[in-house]
């Protein structure tokens, strides 16, 4: 799902590449998805991450909501970057993000009500997701609208993928299911995603509870470090630098 939605804008942006100043789209994509991933490299946004990833569906829901906010805040901050002065930039960024989050919250409550009942508590927390303010400050306020939107999209997709991965691991080990209640989020057409991996599974409570989130995140981070090291030795320098950002 997320990979598909990610590819379309990338293609459109790619077509503009020739007549614009050189923007390294591939670099932005790789930063967002892997090298400078919100969670894996920047270790940001851990509070909502650990709170909602009891199931893959919840992770996907919060990930998509964060993604929408990231893209829109990227666009707005970039559009207003000529107006905003350094002295008042932080209040303006926070105002933009908080407004967007409130609108997403209202929209989900109205049109994705069942999911909102599960995630409702965490949606306002997107405001405090420092990754969004971080991207506004570090990228959107210094780049044109298209790259800023693309950066928000890639950072959002990267965040969503980690949320889904973590949710899937915890759900599979903790409840023996995968994508339970996915039809609440994606409509009945996606009900086939709801899988019971282990029938009559008694459950492994620890994985559903917050400690399980920390454990799974730890293994995920370790796994990413390993992967960064293994196949391409020349990337080692980049991998060593990434965690410090």
């Amino acid at each position: 799902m997320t990979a598909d939605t990610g590819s379309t804008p990338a293609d459109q942006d790619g077509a503009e590449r020739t007549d614009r100043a050189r923007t390294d789209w591939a670099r932005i994509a790789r930063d967002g998805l892997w090298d400078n991933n919100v969670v894996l490299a920047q270790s940001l946004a851990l509070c909502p991450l650990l709170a909602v990833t009891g199931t893959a569906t919840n992770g996907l829901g919060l990930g998509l909501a964060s993604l929408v906010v990231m893209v829109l805040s990227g666009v707005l901050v970039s559009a207003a970057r000529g107006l905003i002065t350094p002295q008042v930039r932080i209040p303006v960024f926070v105002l933009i993000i908080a407004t967007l989050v409130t609108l997403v919250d209202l929209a989900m409550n109205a049109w994705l009500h069942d999911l909102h009942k599960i995630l409702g508590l965490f949606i306002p927390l997107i405001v405090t997701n420092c990754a969004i303010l971080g991207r506004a400050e570090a990228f959107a306020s210094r780049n044109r609208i298209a790259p800023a939107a693309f950066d928000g999209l890639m950072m959002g997709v990267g965040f969503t993928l980690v949320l889904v991965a973590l949710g899937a691991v915890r759900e599979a080990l903790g409840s023996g299911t995968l994508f339970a209640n996915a039809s609440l989020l994606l409509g009945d057409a996606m009900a086939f995603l709801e899988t019971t991996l282990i029938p009559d599974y008694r459950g492994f409570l620890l994985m559903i509870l917050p400690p399980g989130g920390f454990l799974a995140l730890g293994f995920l981070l370790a796994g990413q470090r390993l992967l960064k090291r293994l196949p391409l030795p020349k990337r080692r320098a980049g991998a060593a630098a990434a965690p410090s950002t």
Partner: protein
Amino acid sequence: MNLPLFMRDRDGIGYQATLLGAFTLAAAALLVTGDLVTRGPIAEREAEDLRASLTEVIPAALHDNDLLANPMRLPVADGPLTVYRALAGLDVAGVAFEVVGQGYAGPIRVLLGIDADGRVLGARVLAHAETPGLGDKIEVARDDWILDFDGRSLADPAPARWAVKKDGGVFDQFSGATITPRAVVDAIKGGLETFAAHRDALTASAVLQTQTDQQGTDARGTVR
């Protein structure tokens, strides 16, 4: 730049203040629009939720009215209690209201349906924050424990036996979680006691109220 004088200096207070003010105004406008657009759908969703829960605790066969249409406000010790009445013709077939128990991790909200004779028609947990895997067996989706209350009344079992087995009562507790079922048992017992104490008001006045409603075509939302 044709900006007014006070805004020409981008580092000056005039520009900064205008900038912040303009952004705040734009944000406020967006929020007002968003609220206006979503207010209706949100209210509908919440009514749907409530109606779905009410259908669970009051069998549809018992009544012929819209449970949500005419809620009653019953004055009890800790503030007015919203009571949804199930009417068969003019008779009150049952009532439903919310009771709250203090669980292991905060309040447990239970919707309780009671028939006119004071027997439990059904009980469903609306919201709780109990431990997943231990305390959440109070949800009907996870365990049929809460169905054990169907048909119970203050006389069945005797008041002293309205407790979990560990406390000498008749209701099962869960292994690893006693506080949660105890809270639910107490809440439901409390609800039945509320019904017993206000039985006349809950059953008799509903008939009168329905008659007034039928006279006035658009009378809604009775407040006592």
